[in-house]
């Protein structure tokens, strides 16, 4: 087994950015902001962010901002909290948060909080614990958590906890590793992890590891590289990562690489994409794979970027 084909992945990320004419890339254009975050964070973890034209990216990001303060997934698209966090994260990577009108962005995010403490994704009112995490992460990066009712936000998240220790989208929703990441990270960022039964949740999370070493996101599902991130980061935040077999997981992620053309897929021999490339590399970073920058499990940004935000580098 070879190691991480870092150079190939860098080339893959850089070329996929330029590809604009096939259906797969075209049909993703409404979420290009998230794509940018996945691709650029991968490059940063691989210490290659300097190959990107900062001014070009920053001006494109700012062109996606709506008058309400929120960001769309691309120029001309409606704003949504999902892309607002991606935009803030991309600017944070480049140390360019100063181009933002902080009040405008944070007012948009804070304005999406509902009376019960939950968050809507946009003005149309869909509620999901994903949006709670996004709001809290975004406001925390911009140091404006005081603009929302944190206590109510936390109690809403707790109301989405299931008897198996996991969390769903809304109260009574099925536990799902992606939602669990959002809830655990939101509780972590607000200093509320004591609401979690760590042994119970840790048990559910480590049962996601299947024989091949990969992790699935729910019972009876096939393993998938992206859950290396959702499950692993949650286990780290609740201090139960020693309950899984890390070596086997590293091997599983490496087995999902396209060694010829770069990129990482969900399962061995599937087609690669930017999303799984990012989550594969980020998962390896959490597993302390050599040659990768460390990533923060709650902010989903390189640790040095987080330190720069909070401690002025």
């Amino acid at each position, binding site marked *: 087994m070879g190691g991480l084909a870092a150079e190939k992945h860098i080339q893959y990320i850089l070329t996929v950015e330029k590809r604009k004419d096939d259906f797969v890339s075209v*049909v993703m254009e409404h979420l290009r902001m998230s794509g940018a975050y996945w691709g650029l964070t991968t490059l940063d973890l691989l210490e290659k962010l300097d190959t990107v034209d900062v001014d070009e990216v920053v001006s494109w990001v700012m062109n996606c901002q709506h008058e309400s303060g929120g960001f769309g997934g691309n120029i001309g698209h409606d704003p949504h909290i999902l892309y607002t966090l991606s935009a803030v994260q991309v600017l944070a990577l480049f140390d360019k948060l100063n181009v933002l009108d902080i009040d405008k962005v944070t007012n948009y995010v804070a304005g999406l909080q509902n009376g019960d403490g939950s968050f809507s994704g946009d003005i149309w009112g869909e509620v999901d614990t994903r949006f709670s995490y996004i709001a809290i992460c975004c406001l925390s990066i911009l140091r404006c958590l005081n603009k929302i009712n944190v206590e109510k936000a936390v109690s809403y998240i707790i109301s989405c906890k299931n008897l198996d220790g996991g969390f769903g989208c809304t109260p*009574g929703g*099925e536990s799902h590793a992606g939602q669990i990441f959002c809830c655990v990270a939101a509780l972590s960022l607000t200093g509320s992890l004591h609401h979690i039964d760590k042994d119970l949740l840790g048990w559910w999370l480590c049962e996601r*590891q299947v024989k091949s070493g990969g992790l699935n996101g729910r019972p009876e599902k096939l393993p998938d590289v992206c859950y290396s991130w959702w499950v692993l980061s949650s286990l780290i935040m609740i201090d139960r990562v020693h309950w899984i077999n890390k070596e086997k997981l590293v091997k599983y992620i490496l087995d999902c690489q396209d060694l010829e053309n770069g990129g990482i897929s969900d399962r061995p021999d599937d087609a690669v994409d930017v999303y799984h490339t990012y989550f594969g590399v980020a998962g390896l970073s959490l597993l302390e794979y050599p040659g990768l920058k460390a990533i923060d499990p709650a902010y989903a940004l390189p640790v040095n970027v987080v330190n720069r935000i909070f401690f002025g580098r």
Partner: protein
Amino acid sequence: MDLLLQFQHILQSDPLIDEVGFVHPTQFATLTEDSTGDAAISDGTTFWCRDHKLGVSTQAVLPLYNAAKRAFIAAMEEYKRLGDDGLESEVMKHSKALLLLSSDFGTAWNSRKLVVSKKQQLSMYMGELLLSALVLSCSPKSDQAWSHRRWVIKSITGKCSALQEILGKESELVEKIAERSKMNYRAWNHRCWLVSYMTREQVMHELKKSRNWAGLHVADNCCFHYRRRLMLQILKDSTCKLENASPGYSVEVSEVWKEELDWNEMLINRYIGREALWLHRRFLSLCWMKQFATNLHDVSCHSDLKISTSDSFNSFIDNELHLLNSCSTILDNDFEDFQAQATYSATYILWLTKQIPEFWSEFQEKLTIGNLKTMLSKVCPERSFLWDSLID
């Protein structure tokens, strides 16, 4: 004729189209040959439509998408600039075409919400449910399409007398889509979301109705989770309305649990080594112990729902230990499934002892915990990190 016009013309000329699919050009040729004349619309290369099913050639998807997007953006700009009612139909027409090709194009869904909420006509809201269902026929996991349905339901709640009927149909739609799209989280999440809008009778009816489906799809954790959602709703209703309820009500609720436990045990014995079945049992047993089983030694814990049979706690434990014993015998044939069964049964018992301290002491008397650890280390060595931490 222009590709987009042709697409929209077909959609308009048959408003009953309920399924759209994308077909590879090679399959296309056979489809066209098979359709022997009657009422099949086809140009032989791009579109094929019969019995209200529309097939679109995968080769046409990219140019169609580009045309639909251009038309949608132009219509939306005009509509925003002029605010003209006459432009609404253009926005609706082009967003529909676009969403069938790119189901998570949020801005197109939003444009429809904008138009419909301005008009406030029930028929338009119903039309949105139809369009969303059509999009789900080709993109069953589309987050935005499911979300659009919740927006419709929230918008018409309190304004529409047929809400209960609509909820029933929503539930049926999820089941229909779940049949083709296994373990579809978005679909089942939608069904769980509906529960808070249901009456008690509907919740009971859903529990009865979903049982057959769950029994046929024992690996689908989503459906079992849906049943858990329904059962917790029944429990919640019973604890907050206990004063007003008929005397037999708490018995009725415990019967629901008892029945589910028995049914689950039957499935566990029939389908060897299914994770979803054992996880369901964890839930059932935990609630059963906490809500209904009376432990004579435990006077501190009083629940109005507890059954006053003196031995319900002990007989429950005996039954579960019996299940553990019968499931942990590994036969040589079909080794893997039996090994999984042994692992699930032992982890199930361990999980229960961790959740219910009373169970722990009773359990220790009847089976030494050391045995459980030996067994788990043998049948499931890959999780030794967990066993080592949990059992000391």
